[in-house]
């Protein structure tokens, strides 16, 4: 083969191998590691898979935060004002976690419909509302309106 062509062929092969490797890695990694967001209404309606890594979020219901006295276990209720879901988390909550504020938790839903959170995220400042939570709230508001009619 002509040396220039051979050289090009090698380069093309390298790029091909490189990109297919990347694609393979990416698709393999994606299979496990993307997680979908579910609103409390979705979860109560049984739309969310049990025991799979998902995210859930909404507003923390006023007066629902219960702390254990001798550990860091904390229980609270997340609501979109259409449905409520209990969340259990062990650890330190973020600075901006508060009752009546928006949160997003990632974790797994157990058989009893309790969300076992491995991570709880709150907003970054007082103006910001997690966009997923905002949308979930809008939806439940609309649902409430159509129900009234």
């Amino acid at each position, binding site marked *: 083969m002509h*040396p*220039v062509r051979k*050289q090009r062929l*090698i*380069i093309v092969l*390298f*790029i091909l191998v*490189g*990109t297919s*490797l*990347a694609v393979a*890695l*990416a698709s*393999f*990694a*994606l299979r*496990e*590691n*993307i*997680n*979908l*967001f579910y609103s409390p209404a979705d979860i109560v309606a049984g739309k969310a898979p049990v025991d799979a890594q998902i*995210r859930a979020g909404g507003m923390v219901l006023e007066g629902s935060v219960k*702390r254990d006295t*001798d*550990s*860091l276990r904390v229980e609270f209720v997340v609501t979109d004002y259409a449905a409520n879901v209990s969340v259990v988390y*062990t*650890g*330190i*909550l973020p*600075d*901006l976690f508060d009752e009546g504020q928006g949160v997003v938790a*990632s974790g797994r839903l157990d058989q009893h419909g309790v969300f076992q959170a491995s991570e709880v995220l709150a907003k*970054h*400042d*007082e103006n*910001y509302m*997690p*966009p*997923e939570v905002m*949308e979930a709230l809008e939806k439940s508001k609309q649902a409430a309106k159509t129900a009234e009619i």
Partner: protein
Amino acid sequence: MIPEYGHFALILALCLAILQSVVPVWGVYKNDRYFMSLSRSLALGQFVFVAIAFAVLTYLFLQDDFSVKVVASHSNTLLPNIYKFSAVWGNHEGSLVLWILILAAWSLAVAIYSRELPLDMVARVLSVMGMISIGFLLFSLLTSNPFERHLPNTPLEGSDLNPLLQDPGLIVHPPMLYIGYVGFSVAFAFAVAALSSGRLDAAWARWSRPWTNVAWGFLTLGIALGSWWAYYELGWGGWWFWDPVENASFMPWLMGAGLVHSLAVTEKRGVFKSWTVLLAIFSFSLSLLGTFMVRSGVLTSVHSFAADPERGVFILAFLALVIGSSLTLYAFRAPTVASRSHYSLWSREMLLLINNIVFLAATLTVLFGTLFPLIMDALNLGKYSVGPPYFNAVFVPLMAIMTVFMGFAPSANWKKTRADKLKMQLAVAAGASVLVGLTLPFFYGAEYNIWAALAVCFASWLIMTLFLDMRNKLRNAQSISAGLSRLSRSYYGMVIAHLGFAFTIIGVCLVSQYSVERDLRMEPGDKVELAGYSFQFDGSRAIQGPNYSGQEGVIQVHQAGELIAVLYPQKRRYHAQQGQVMTEAAIDNGLMRDVYVAMGEPLGEEAWAIRLHYKPFVRWMWLGGLLIAFGSFLAAADKRYRLAAKEKAGVKDTVAEAV
């Protein structure tokens, strides 16, 4: 009146930017040296007016002029002066002015340090930079005017800077990052200039290489600073989250790493030319994409100050224009520049090609993971999030592959490696590094950790091959010092940067594998053992800061019965911002380990939730980043770029044929 002066200066800067982008190219077209040389003065003029606008904005912040919207919503009379200063870029509008200022500064730098360049090249480069500047000035003036007023009902007090941003690290992080980000515009401008003039040669690579190195070095510093800031300021001991906004700065870095290496091949061997141009275009496009993602509000994080669809559309349109037009130019011009040189499978060219492919693949996978949720959301296919497991699963193997080849690269020759003797030496180095890697975990940590072993293998492979190559280079020298002084700065730059990469590998992997972390409830007098350290909580006390008040925990850290540190983690409540709460971690740092303590929430009866971390080798990661940046700067300071300047000065400028 003062804010209006600033606004006026910004408008004048826009006028000069328009002239800067049109007049020099007109000069090139008409072959008029006077118009071409105007580009330098116009760049200076633009810089002066942008600097005035920036100075005015800074003055407004320092004077607490709350009639200006940006100041009122991001500052406060109680805010310490140094943070009033950094608040200038702690908001959307101001950070754009900083961006424009840095772009103008880079243009000015090109205007000053381009004596060796043919005049038409200077004209083309500065005109491209003028065009970029127009885009950002328009963006600032039309959608995010920093000098907008609150008149007539001026608030008496400002609503303060986000407490997360009130930190020394955040004074330096954004400027560093921007210098890097925006610096790629120089590489981009050189690429476009070379494409449009049709002179895509080794000389072009030599001109654009030091600029790219400097920009990439700053970007490295910026990212390292950001990671360090996240580590001590966010209060949970993480240093990299694969957050979309971090990725926004990381993607240009990865692509830039490819570009820096590809430029080396183009300069030295004259090959990969069109590839290098493409990387330059991609690097800057990713910088712009990062700006779009951060500034448009499609992402939500501390970095994105405000969500405004109008702004998003503007940047997206600008992004499409820049990428579209540069790729079109590329499509028309690139095929005309073919390379003549040949190289074999075992050559430095090939190894650098592998480097490029790995960096490209890494950029693409990060890009994919970052954009996937946005695309799915835009298509209404659900709200996904792609987390660290994805990024780690794709990124770590790619870097591992690269590290293997990275060890060969310094000793490999251009064109064809004379292998026989080298093979033996490299085999010894490989064997030794495997041995070091496999045995080290026996002496460190309670359990044998295979990942730590692998990381140490890779890092020692890099270090050993670097020293092997250095030894081979010194073999014929009369004395070691004579040999060392003969090696070029760019060679030292490479060695230092690669060493830095080895340090980063060690830091990242060992801190991930050997970190010990515990969150627990502690009452005054409680004692806890963690990783050989004993932590004693002595209760908390009230503290009072300039614009916050809060609680401070007192924690004694003992090792083997001896007191090694007393740590004072804080929980602050800022007066403005509706009493936002902030965690301030306390760290006892060291080269081999950090001991990190943060307070969670009060649990009643003097008890607190306390977070304790033991982080071995965490500093190595940032130290590695510093070394990479330093190596990159050192390579840019190589003598040959200045020698080339002297040679060129003797030669009369060649005026290019008309486009």
